[in-house]
């Protein structure tokens, strides 16, 4: 959701014939979109005069609702500003609407058609100067489409890769990539993305990319007898999976976080590589890998409260004021009703009670609007990062809107009906829920340094937690529908008592608050993980979740989930 904005100071607009303000957009990864997934939208605003205002992008959502992304624009005469949004297109038949609003109202608008012909089931993004080599995708049976990109056009937020099945890096100018673009790619791979690096003369592997690779490219590709393509010398890391051709490593596969990273010793985009049938099994094995699913999914939002009644004190105040009003009217009518000028007193009382009652009820309405949120911070082993998924319920029992701020770089995805307005400049989201309630998912990648291991020594099993970040509280160890409570504070080393395991299915085992309900939901999800053990605890990470304008987080709960490695 992060919006990358930069000004093309050198851009020249046609002098007199051009319109005063020009708005253009380009949607999709290489022009392709996957409905329901984030895709980049690049908008260029050019003007031959100074323009200050707001760019609005209205994206039609399901059920007639609209998600409006906004960003501040400031264009100096003769220049253009480019702004990149990450948007979700759900109905490609409906146009996107681009609008520039200035102080004097709407200054420009343009409709941006998407079209069903741009729809794909998945995208293979290749960073290459050679825009050929992925033609085989057309014959793969699935509607997977190739996108040939340059390094500079890579997304600046990890969610920009949401629609991508595989990123292939062949030609990469390290200077062309901004740090945010590097972090976006690394963050996406850590969450479960698939990255292929093809050895090529023009690929000096930069240090930030080398960290991800399961092998070192020791030499550029050269001819090898008996092999139709030139092969580079790969030096695999210990534990990496290696596919060999003769005694030469052809492909080396490893992992980074929950993702898969592969290095090929040959260039599949070269004329020889494109013609070599031996490349197809390698492509297939990479593309057919299942994508890992995060522990937190949309159904967690069902655990969130959707409404709340007025506080009893407010109801009591309204009731007492009503009784006082009726009594006052009775007294005034009896004493002053028949008297000359009694009407004035009567109207004064009506006006006074009217103002007070309206003020109290309008204030109560405003106070009733809030949010409820639950965050699952899923530590990604080996990546020093965590994927934090926050499910937010907009509580608007009497209608109206709720404003809240989201962390910078977080992806905001509506999960139900309701209109959303996302200010990308200020990271402020305004939600209006049509049915008095709306649900959305806010996902972010945060650096987290926490590891958990179960260590067996002398017949005793102990849980060892290491890392710089604060350890979770009220932690428990989960394995196969059983939990082992670890106390309110989690110590670096806790001996696990076999007698203290208890079934999690017992009603009320964890309590009834939001965090307990979220934990029970989480255990059902983790059940699918089979015999793996997980450390689950409560957290209060300030970086995670959304905030109301006054800094409050509403009704909130945070859980940290750490996979436990058995040693």
């Amino acid at each position, binding site marked *: 959701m992060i919006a990358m904005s930069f000004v093309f100071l050198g851009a020249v607009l046609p002098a007199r014939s051009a319109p005063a303000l020009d708005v253009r957009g380009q949607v999709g990864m290489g022009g392709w979109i996957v409905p329901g997934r984030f895709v980049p939208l690049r908008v260029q605003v050019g003007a031959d005069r100074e323009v200050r205002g707001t760019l609005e992008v209205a994206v039609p959502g399901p059920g007639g609702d609209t998600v409006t992304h906004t960003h501040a624009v400031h264009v100096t005469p003769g220049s253009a500003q480019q702004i990149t949004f990450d948007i979700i297109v759900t109905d490609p038949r409906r146009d996107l609407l681009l609008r520039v609003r200035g102080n004097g109202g709407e200054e420009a608008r343009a409709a941006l058609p998407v079209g069903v012909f741009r729809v794909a089931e998945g995208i293979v993004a290749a960073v290459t100067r050679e825009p050929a080599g992925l033609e085989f995708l057309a014959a793969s049976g699935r509607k997977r489409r190739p996108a040939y990109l340059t390094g500079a056009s890579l997304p600046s937020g990890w969610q920009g890769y949401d629609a991508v099945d595989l990123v292939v890096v062949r030609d990469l100018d390290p200077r062309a990539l901004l740090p945010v673009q590097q972090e976006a790619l690394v963050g996406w791979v850590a969450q479960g993305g698939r990255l292929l690096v093809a050895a090529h003369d023009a690929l000096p592997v930069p240090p930030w990319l080398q960290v991800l690779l399961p092998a070192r490219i020791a030499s550029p590709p050269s001819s090898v007898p008996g092999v139709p393509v030139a092969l580079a010398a790969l030096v695999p890391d210990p534990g990496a999976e290696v596919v060999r051709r003769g005694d030469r490593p052809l492909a080396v596969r490893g992992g980074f976080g929950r993702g898969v990273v592969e290095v090929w010793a040959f260039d599949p985009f070269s004329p020889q590589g494109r013609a070599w049938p031996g490349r197809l099994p390698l492509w297939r094995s990479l593309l057919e890998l299942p994508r890992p699913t995060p522990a937190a999914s949309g159904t967690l939002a069902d655990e969130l409260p959707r409404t709340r009644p007025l506080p009893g004190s407010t109801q009591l105040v309204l009731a007492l004021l009503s009784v006082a009003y009726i009594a006052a009217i009775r007294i005034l009518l009896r004493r002053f009703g028949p008297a000359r000028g009694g009407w004035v007193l009567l109207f004064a009382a*009506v006006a006074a009670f009217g103002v007070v*009652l309206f003020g109290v009820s309008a204030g109560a309405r405003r106070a009733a609007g809030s949010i409820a949120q639950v965050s699952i911070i899923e530590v990604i082993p080996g990546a020093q990062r965590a994927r934090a998924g926050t499910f937010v319920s907009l509580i608007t029992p009497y209608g109206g809107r709720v404003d809240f701020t989201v962390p910078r770089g977080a992806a905001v995805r509506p999960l139900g009906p309701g209109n959303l307005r996302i200010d990308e400049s200020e990271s402020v989201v305004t939600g209006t829920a049509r049915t008095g309630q709306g649900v959305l998912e806010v996902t972010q990648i945060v650096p987290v340094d926490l590891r958990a291991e179960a260590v067996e020594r002398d017949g005793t099993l102990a849980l060892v937690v290491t890392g710089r970040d604060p350890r979770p509280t009220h932690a428990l160890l989960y394995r196969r529908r059983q939990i082992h409570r670890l106390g309110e504070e989690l110590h670096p080393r806790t001996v696990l008592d076999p007698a203290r395991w208890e079934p999690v299915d017992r009603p009320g085992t964890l309590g009834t608050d939001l965090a307990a309900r979220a934990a029970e939901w989480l255990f059902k999800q983790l059940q699918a993980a089979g015999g793996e053990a997980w450390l689950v605890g409560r957290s209060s990470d300030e970086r995670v979740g959304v905030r109301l304008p006054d800094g409050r987080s509403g009704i909130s709960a945070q859980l940290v989930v750490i996979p436990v490695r058995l040693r």
Partner: protein
Amino acid sequence: MIRLNAVTRSDLRRRLGGGRALTMVTVYLSVLALLAFLSLPPDLGRLDDLRQEGLLLAFLIVETVLAAYLTSASACGEIAVEGEKSVVDLAASPFTPGAVAWGKVLTSLLFATLLTVLAVPFSLVVAGIRGEAPSAVARAAIVTVPVAASLGALGALYSAVFDSDFTRSFVHWLTLLALIVGATALPPPWDVLSPVRMVILLARDGLRVDALLASALYALLIFPVGVAIARRIERIRAMYQH
């Protein structure tokens, strides 16, 4: 300074100071207070997904119907206010037929205005909690006052025309049902004659010309009714003189 019609002055003194009249106003306000309180639970708002003003409209409709009933029932004698003289009683008084007729009409108008004004704080509670502008309450009053006043004038006419309590009550209720229920069932654009429809249009859609015209029609109805009351008084007097 405006000199108030003597009949109106006397009627208002009874309606504002009398014990039964006070009870009537108290019951009216208590019903509205209860309705306002019942609009507090948030789940009620979901009866109308798109528009939160559904509850405010319901409140304003009930308020209009109650004000119309109380004004007309007081005028036709269905709710007897102690000390208040009916049109027939006043026919034997030295007041001119016109003074009696316009006095009764003015009483209805002022009583309808009073009931509408007294309901404002509770209307504002509903508007405030549902996020509606107070102007919607003011627009609804454009309907409530003329409708209640014209029905009050009709009530005064019925009290002069029908001697039997049963016949008077029957015709009174028939009129109420015809205007509030029957007119609502009319096909467009005639359904705008229904006070219910008028309240909805004015409170929800702003100052619509058709609803304003219908409201003006109710306001104008007061004049022929006043003339009819005066004629009836003349006839009663002529009857007694012979």
